[in-house]
């Protein structure tokens, strides 16, 4: 187990460097960021040159990347164009996005798995058809439609919630945005669980458990569910990374000042430091989430052993 974890951690190193280098080059290809700082007029050449020097933009790209990576390892992620440290931006944005992601994941687990189990056990019954139809609708309607619709209905028409999230972004404010963010994945989780449960219901070990005279509840939770959750856990694990980085739409609609918003603004302003910094952290989150998922397999299925 220990050796497996170490091997996985070592594998992360090339992935990490490759991903950051790619992002670094991509942002660089977009052109000269300083020209965008002066509005519709030309920056005066002396100030532009001075700014380029300060942000290291006058050096060749490989040298910029080397300096940047060197700084990252000392914990310095550079400065955004508005004079704020990128670490400062991260310390305000990540907690918000992590809260939002947690809310979304809780929705996925609670609603998604419950619906999946219910429909999986009652295959072909009316409830199965209804849930199937609903998941179809949720998957086919884009997130921004659900988001704007809920915002309009709950926030403006019925006044149940505030349409926008305050800068503190407390958990209760994030419930509706979290639901919107989770909606599509939630539908996938439901369908995955349903298929998996329906398949395993006919498995030998379930028949044995039932034949042993175990109570139905115990058969479902201990035997059926535990075996059926492996694909679902994989999905949710990889989804954590996707939710954190992909919340741009939801974050913009509900005015959440999280990672998605900072990335969006960073890209618009071509702030290499902001974009690369945030993506670097997201890459790490993705890698760690994947590792945790793989380790969870062993917990769920004792037959799986890592060496």
């Amino acid at each position, binding site marked *: 187990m220990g050796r497996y974890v170490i091997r996985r951690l070592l594998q992360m190193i090339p992935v990490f460097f490759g991903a950051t280098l790619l992002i670094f080059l991509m942002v660089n290809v977009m052109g*000269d960021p300083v*020209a965008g700082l*002066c509005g519709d007029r030309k920056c005066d050449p002396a100030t532009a040159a001075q700014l380029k020097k300060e942000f290291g933009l006058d050096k060749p790209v490989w040298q910029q990347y080397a300096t940047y990576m060197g700084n990252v390892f000392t914990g310095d992620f550079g400065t955004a164009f508005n*004079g704020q440290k990128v670490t400062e931006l991260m310390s305000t944005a990540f907690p918000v996005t992590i809260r939002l992601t947690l809310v979304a994941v809780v929705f996925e687990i609670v609603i998604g798995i419950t619906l999946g189990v219910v429909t999986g056990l009652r295959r072909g019954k009316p409830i199965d058809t209804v849930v199937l139809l609903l998941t179809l609708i949720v998957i086919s309607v884009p997130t921004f439609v659900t988001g704007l619709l809920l915002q309009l209905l709950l926030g403006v028409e019925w006044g149940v919630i505030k349409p926008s999230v305050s800068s503190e972004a407390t958990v209760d404010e994030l419930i509706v945005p979290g639901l919107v963010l989770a909606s599509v994945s939630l539908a996938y989780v439901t369908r995955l669980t349903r298929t998996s449960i329906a398949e395993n219901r006919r498995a030998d070990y379930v028949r044995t458990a039932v034949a042993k005279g175990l109570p139905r509840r115990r058969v479902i939770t201990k035997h059926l569910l535990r075996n059926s959750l492996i694909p679902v856990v994989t999905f949710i694990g990889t989804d954590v990374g996707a939710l954190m980085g992909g919340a741009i739409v939801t974050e*913009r609609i509900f*005015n959440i000042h999280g990672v998605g918003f900072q990335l969006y603004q960073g890209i618009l302003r071509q702030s290499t430091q902001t974009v690369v910094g945030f993506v670097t952290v997201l890459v790490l989150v993705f890698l760690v989430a994947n590792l945790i998922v793989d380790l969870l397999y062993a917990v769920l299925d004792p037959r799986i052993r890592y060496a």
Partner: protein
Amino acid sequence: MRGATHAKWAACAVAVALAATGCGGGSSDGGGGDGSGIVGSSWGDPQNPLEPANTNEVQGGKVLDMLVRGLKRYDPKTGEAQDMVAESIDTKDSQNFTVKIKDGWKFSNGEAVTAKSFVDAWNYGAHLKNNQKNAYFFGYIEGYDKVHPEKGDASAETLSGLKVVDPKTFTVKLTQKFSTWPDTLGYPSFAPLPKAFFDNHSAWLSKPVGNGPYTVKSYQKGSKMELRKWDGYSGDDKAQNGGVDLKVYTDNNTAYTDLMAGNLDLVDDVPASQLKNVKSDLGDRYINTPAGIIQTLAFPFYDKKWDKAGAEKVRQGLSRAINREQITETIFQKTRTPAKDWTSPVLGEDGGYSDSVCGDWCEYDAGEAKKLVEEGGGIPGGTLKISYNADTGSHKEWVDAVCNSINKALGKSNACVGNPIGTFADFRSQASQQKLDGAWRAGWQMDYPLIQNFLEPNYYTDASSNDGKYSNEDFDKLINEANGETDTAKAVTRFQDAEKILAKDMPAIPLWYQNGSAGYSDRVSDVALNQFSVPVYEAIKVN
């Protein structure tokens, strides 16, 4: 009830999801008619650090407008530069100015506003090492080339043209005659700064201190700023409300929704997609007033094909092929006004605006357009490419409409095509390095309400924003003469003479004047935008 009817069908689709949520509602801050109410206003994260000489866009401008007061201030209605901190600004030769400041002005930390507060602030703004994006504002002051050379390091620490005479007086020497120079001093870049700014710069940035009607109560960078009325304010434009809360929105649509839900009092950037509904949503709580912004199509004079004799006829023809009325009405919902000159209506007749300079050249006439383009030898290369940035500002829609109008007028399907460029920064970088071929969208937001500011930076030979490298000796001569004229009215006439040359050469096609738009809740009244499309916060009353 906006959108309610369209929304009902989908309500059942999300009903399951709804059942799972239970959230508390909210209400906005209290306040009464006693002038203590707080105004909640939408905001965007300022692009640059919040220093006066480093702020060149509206979001940072909003804060500075509440926080600092300079020698002059532009009247929000007329645009006239009126003395604020200045007692008098005198000159005999339009080149040497003596500035006297009023007694009793203070910064909110108790420091007195003296001549030194101004001179230090201007020296800071001009110096190369401070990276101030508005440094060029100080370019007319003698010694600017020493503290801010085109290349290399600064050879002086301070502007030699600025001298403190006594605590209430300082003198300014300019490099050239510039009669209307005092009228440029209303821009926040010329604001005075307290010692605290220089002593502890990062502390000042996280909680700015100024001499304006408001003080900063709290500032969370990137999300919120709370400003409160400052009772010790010395000016006569005291705040009519208890304070202003600026909230950063990730999207102007969200801010608009918040206004509808009653969580916000003022949105100063009504999203384009809501312009159709705004009248029914807000009624007379929607304002749409001219701002000092003009949009033009600029041409490359560094390209021989556009600089030869006869090319001006092509440009004039193209100008006549654009149906400005129709485009401003259908695409912009009248938040733009068809342009009739190269300045802006906010200048007023006395300030140099004229609705006849462009004349027929700015009127749509398909037949004449076709004739003119043919007389001029046709569009160079057969196709006109209009470059624009595709990331912000929904430029694609109007560029396509302009091209459509040109193609129809000239009877050719490929006379004009749009050329989108990914990001604003890349677009500006290509434009300023003369890498664009064909025309491009050029926007100009005035720095100060003077006709000089619309003409000189854009069309004077090698001027700072003359990206197309247009050059005309007669035009330059008239601008120089106008700047040297001591009488303001005569100066304006000279500038207008220069503008007539633009009508002849058509170096850029005037498209439309941009308006500022804002919507507000029924909690507040007396809302207006100034010429820079910044809300006049201190005048807002909370009911």
